[in-house]
Structure formats: structure tokens, C-alpha cells
């Protein structure tokens, strides 16, 4: 099986890579491109630890093939901060102590960014339902949801 050549954009960088036709986007990111901020928790689309944005749509990168990225725009956790300045979502996760072990955190931050792009003013319930595809076993979600709502308020304030 010969490798496929893919040209795509990841976090604003034009990236070319060779991958096996059956390699997942998650494997390509982690193993081929050394972007290990995206995590594998299950590889079956059930935990959300591998969440990335593909042409603006939130996806589990374990359920996307590496070859599907051809010509697309991918954003991973490594592309969320503006250089060395944290994104408000990242800052609010820190201020709210919304992470304990931190393994689910990249996925939650990517998913939260997708939520707030669609719905800048979510209710607690809307945030909980949108983020139901991201598992956290440490926090009981309380501080994560607070961080999300806090970040939403801050981003609305900055936008107005």
C-alpha cells in the first residue's frame, strides 16, 4: 500500500505529509507531525480528547482519515493561543482550576472554541449539551462549565 501525499493547512501553516491511506488524522497529527497536544483517549469517537477543527467544524480526529485533510484548514490545540498570549478560553480554564490531570483539556478547549463560535452566549445547559462529547473523569465538569461561561462572557465583552 503506497503512501498518500497530502497538502493541507494546520494552524495556519501549509503542511505537506505522506500518510498511509488508513491512518487517522489523529495518528498523522501525533505520529507523523509530532503535534502531540491532541490526545487519544479511545480512538472510537467517544471521548473527545482528540477534538480538532476541520474547516471550522468540530470533529474527533480519530474518526477522520489523514487523507481527508487534503486542501482543508485544520486547527489543533497548538493553534489556539495567539503566539505566547493565551486565548481567553485557555486563560479561563486556568483561572477556574478547570483542569486536574489535564489530558482532556486540549479537547475541551478546542470544543469550547467551536461552541462559542456558534453560540457566543450559551446557557449552562447549552454548554453542557454541546460539550457532552468530551469526557472528563477528574472534575465533575463544574469548573469546566464555569470556565466556558466565563470565557464566553469575556469574549462577548471584548467583541462589543
Amino acid at each position: 500500500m503506497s503512501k498518500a501525499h497530502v497538502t493541507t493547512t494546520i494552524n495556519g501553516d501549509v503542511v505537506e505529509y505522506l500518510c498511509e491511506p488508513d491512518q487517522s488524522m489523529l495518528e498523522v497529527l501525533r505520529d507523523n507531525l509530532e503535534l502531540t497536544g491532541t490526545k487519544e483517549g479511545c480512538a472510537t469517537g467517544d471521548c473527545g480528547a482528540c477534538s480538532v477543527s476541520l474547516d471550522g467544524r468540530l470533529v474527533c480526529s480519530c474518526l477522520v482519515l489523514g487523507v481527508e485533510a487534503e486542501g482543508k484548514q485544520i486547527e489543533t490545540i497548538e493553534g489556539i493561543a495567539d503566539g505566547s498570549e493565551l486565548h481567553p478560553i485557555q486563560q479561563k480554564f486556568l483561572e477556574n482550576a478547570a483542569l486536574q490531570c489535564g489530558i482532556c483539556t486540549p479537547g475541551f478547549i478546542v470544543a469550547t472554541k467551536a461552541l462559542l463560535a456558534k453560540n457566543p452566549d450559551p446557557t449552562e445547559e447549552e454548554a453542557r449539551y454541546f460539550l457532552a462529547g468530551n469526557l472528563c473523569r477528574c472534575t465533575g465538569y463544574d469548573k469546566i462549565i464555569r470556565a466556558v461561561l466565563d470565557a464566553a462572557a469575556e469574549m462577548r465583552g471584548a467583541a462589543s
Partner: protein
Amino acid sequence: MSTNKDYKWVGTSPIRPDGADKVTGKAAFGADKNLPGMLHGKILRSPYGHAKIKSIDTSAAESAPGVLAVMTSKDLPDLASEMGEAGESAVDFRDLSQNILAAGKVLYHGHAVAAVAATSPKLAKQALKLIKVEYEELPVVLEIEDAMADDAPILHENQFTPGGSQDKPSNIAGKMKLPRGDIEKGFAEADVIVEREFTTPTVHQGYIEPHAVTASMSASGHADVWCCTQGAFVVRAMTAKVLNMDVGKVKVTPSEIGGGFGAKTTVYLEPIAVKLSEMSGRPVKMVMDREEVLRATGPTSASVIKIKLGATNDGKLVAAEGTLKYGAGAYKGSPMGPGCMCVFASYEIPNFVVRGFDVVLNKPKVAAYRAPGAPMAAFAMESVMNEMAGKLDLDPIDFRLENAVKEGSVAAYGPKFPAIGFVETLKAAKEHPHYSAPLGKNQGRGVGTGFWFNIGMQSSATLNVNESGSVTLITGSADIGGSRASMALFAAEELGIDYDLITPLVSNTEEAGYCDVTGGSRTTFATGMAVVKASKNLVANMKKRAAKTWGVEVDEVLWQDGQAVPPFSSGKNPMSMAEIAASAAKTGGPLTASASLTAQGAGAGFGVHICDVEVDPETGKTDVIRYTAIQDAGKAIHPAYVEGQYQGGAAQGIGWALNEEYVYNDKGVLQNFGFLDYRMPVANDLPMIDTVIVEVPNPAHPYGVRGVGETPIVPPLAAVAEAVNNAAGVRITDLPISPPRLLAEIDAK
């Protein structure tokens, strides 16, 4: 209730030092370690729940493309049965080795049989298919009481029940008995007796990060191991033991750890990766997938627990009897001991007997899970306490207050309690607005309480003062939930310098002083004590340096707000830590300080949870609509992370109560081996979880700290079940309270 009278840093909640790397994806977890020339290891696992291994032929796999090493249990030294320390509990190293790679028999579906290292994960997986194993299938036993029966299939022909027949092997690996007083007399004095039996299923810790290791064996015979673990020194000890190496030849570097909850205090992959690296001469990386985690790593025990409780009409407990049977999985070592010691620990009961049984089954060997053994025991005991309160027409919290242990009470497991906070915690729960808030239709409220011992064990800490006066703080305690922040807060408080000037590190087994596992809720307590002691040593040293500079006696020098203060008579100005550091070369050389200790006096932790649920009578679905966790922390060093422990433990307990269970078929094959079907709580399953931090200082700790990590998983099971009982009018004694089970009970009512 939080008091912060004299502290500047302790009791505040600054951003954790490792936080920025964890929100940007830079933090390196177990599976993020790669080395040049690295191979990938994969494991062949048993397709049977119980079988004899008649033969293993690895020859085809060995000559497969890209394969550089293949191993089975024959490549591990044959260890004698020998008990050793394993994190918080003991393990038989022979069992540990045979659990890592099966020898002679496979004891559960998914039991590791052989391992391959190849140039890619795909080639390693393909090679596994070429290994020919001939099995003779044996009958499986999955339920505790079936395994205890006389005619049960036997897992270990060489295992005999202590105190039982030494001719006939048994699945009962251990027994214990804790008696006090005279239970016959006690029950005779009782006006009301409640007796019930409870069962809980096998559940998994459910950490999101699968086990992962990268190992490299040098030609010099030194092994380098990188892995996600709660205890690098325990991985070192176990790996060395299983491979018959000296511990000094194994270096373990802990990565960031993506959850553990007790389960990452043992080894599965590490010795295999080291051996494959030795055989191939190349570094070897091994990462489990989720299915392997659920099928083959330690969940916690299923249990069958019977409680009989006697009380007088005025609400005094007079007698109790408990029979606690825990499933150990394939090898002995369920949390029978702590379960039996916990079950009556919260109450003053003059007469009781507790009997415990440790029973092996054709399921994976259990591993520690947050307060091992206690949640099941508390589910049974607290459910009976709630039922008894109802029968006595007493408020459930008042009933507990009437019988609660306090300072001076003799614990059911032996020692006399020093200052403890159970009464204060119960009172805080009763005063909380949640406890008296109105409820709607199909809604109900329940309370449950929890106790956990907490542990001390060994810890070390080193402080290196940089020439600017900032400090590097090194320990070997894995940071699983923000402990770097707590360590830095202790040092900042003691040294009197800013939190931001301290860089706390979790180092490897060759550079950090020995630290036992991050488990038993011990890190903030015990490693914190080592940090405090090392900080005091450093302050003493810095006072000496200042005294030398000033030409005064050291006992004339005070340490205040991060500076040495001279005696007024000297006419000198105070010296800041930065100034002392800058002149260190002239006053005796670099400033470093260390401390090591075996921490004594881990304070017991008590929690009370209040749970409101709404039950849908049409579907049997239960929604938790309000939840409050109240617990004595002794002293909350970083209150936000203390709250996080309360909330996270509550969420795990709610999952255990309502959804989570291992479902096996009759061949012993786990049916729900992914997160879709092993249903842990997601964000829309839970409400906000309110917390109250009670602070009754632990007299044995310089800041009054008690461990807080484990107690929060103990109360929820009974609190949820009681809330369901009050909402739907049915008392569920078998977990989980899943919709089909609850609906059947509602329909049968």
C-alpha cells in the same frame, strides 16, 4: 468556614505552575514520548476467560517483516511467591509477573500472553496474528458467591484459604474478622433491627489516558523508562523485581499523568517494554488502546455486602454485623481489608462483628480505585443508616450526629481518633440551604456520609535556591490534580517569598529523593510535610549566612517576609533572600536544602453529601438535579483544587450509582469495552456540584492538612440510592440504578 488567619499563600488558589503547558498542548503525557529508532510493542491477549495454555509457538511471528523481538512469560524470571509493597497496598510479585504475562493459564479474557516489538504498530499487530497458542478452555466463574461455592471452578490450584482446608484449593484467598463487644447481647438490646444485602458491580476508574510507556535498555544494563504513573519509584521497584534487576539500574521518569484514581500504582507494560528493548537493542514504545484498558487493567472489585444494624428507639446504635465479600479478579488482593476497617468506622457501636472475604474470579486483577473498598461498604452501611433513620422517625443527619465518632472515640479498626471533623461536617450539611430546599414532583433527596483513613508513607523534597533568590523545588510525587501548586504554596509560605518565584518540579527516580505513590490522599499531606521541613532547613541555613555576613550570633537573626532581620543593636539592614543568594559563594556556597520523612498521623477524612434526583416514572431514568459535597479538609492549601477533588469524586460516585458496570457474557467476555457502552457521566448528566470545605485541623500536620482526594467517592452511592428511594418509593440495593432496573422496581411496586 475556611479560615486563613495567619497565612499569606496557604489557603489561596493561584494558577497552577504547570497550567499554561496543559492548556496549550505542550505538556507531555505518557504516549507523547518518542525516541529515535524506536520500535512499537503490542500484546497478544487471551480470547478465553479461563484456559490452560498448552503451547505457544512464536516462530512465525519472529520471522515476520519488521519484527525484532517476541516474548512470552518464559522470558521473565520465575519468581517465588513473595509479598511486597505496591503503592498503597501489598502485592505478590509472582502474581504481578503472571498478570503481566500469563504463565501456564490464562485467568481472564484479555490476559496478556505474548508481546511483539516491530518497526511500526501495524507490523507489530500483524505479527501477533502469527503467534500460535493452543488453549484448553476451562469453565469460568464470574460471580463472587459462585466462586465461593464448594464445586466452583478453581483459578489457582496452589491457593488455599487461610485457616481453611489445606488440601482442597479454594477461590477464597483471604478472610478477616473484626469483633468488638458481644453482638448477641447488643441485638437483644435493640428496639429496631434492619438487615439488608447489597451488591455492587465491577467498575473501572475510567482515566482518560490509556497506559503508555517508552523504554530503552542500554548495553550497560541500565534501563530508562518513561511512563504515566502515580508513582515512579513503585514502577521502578516492580519493574526491577519482575526482571530481576537492581533498582539502581532502572531509571523511571514520570510523564504528566492523564488520570489514575489509584489504578496507575502498578505495572502492566513497563517490564515488557524494558525486556523487548533488551532483546531488540532498540527503544520500545507501548501504548494501550481503550479496549485493552477496560479488558485487562485493574478495575475495582464487585462486592456482596450484608449489613445487620440494631438501634434503640432513642436512636442509639447498639449492635452491627457486616459480611463483606469482595471480588479480587484473577489474583488475590481485593480491598477487603480497608473495606472491613471502614464499614463501621464513622460510628460509635459498642458491639459489632465484621467478616471479610477476598475472592478470586475470572476477571482482571483489581487495582486501587479512590478509597479502595470504602464506597461499596458505605453504600451498604449508609443505606441501612438511612432506612433505620426512617424507621426511627429521625432526621437522617440527627441520627448520625447521635452516633458519630469524635475526638477520643475508639475507631472500629482499633486506634483512638485524634481531632476529627465528622460532627462539624454533619452540622455543616444540616445547615446548608440545600438540605431544607423544597422538592418537586418525582423528586427526592438523600444523604450519605463517607470516611477514609488517608495515609502518610515516605516523601522527600529538595529546594535549590537560584542566584537570583528564586527557588527550584524538586519532589518525586506525581502531580495528578494540581499538587505542584500546593507544594509551591507551602514553600512560598515558609520562605516568605512570592509563589511565582518557586518552580516546582516532579522529577525522576535518579534525581528526586524517594517518594511513595501519589495515592492514599497523601501527597499534599506527606510530600507537603517534606516541603515544609526542607523549607525550614533552608531558612535555618539562610539565617546562618546572614549572621555570618553581619558578624552576629545566628539565634539573634529573625526570618520575616522572605528576609533575614538582624538584631536592632547591630545597626545592619535586613537581607532579602535574593541578597543572601547573590552572596552565597562568600558565605558557604550554593543554598540547597532537603528533607525526607515517613509521615505519621495522616488525619482521617469525613464527608457528607446531599443529593437531589428526579426520577422519570415512565422510563426509570434518574437525573441528579442538585448536589452538595461537604468535607473536612483539615486545612485547604489550594481551595479550588480541594473543591475539584470533592466534585470529581462525587461525579465518579454518581456514575457508579447510576450507570457504570462491567457487563460480561457467560464465557467471561466483557461486552462493554468502550466509552460508548461503559457509560461514565458526561457534562449534561450532572448539575453544578456545590462544595463546603470544613476545616478541623489535623494535629499531626504543620498546617493541619488531611488528605482530601479519596473521601469524596465514598458517600455518593448511598446518597443517590436514598434520593431515588425518596423520589420513586423503591429501595434499590443492587447497583447500578440503571433505567431498566429502576423501571422494573417501579412497575413491581
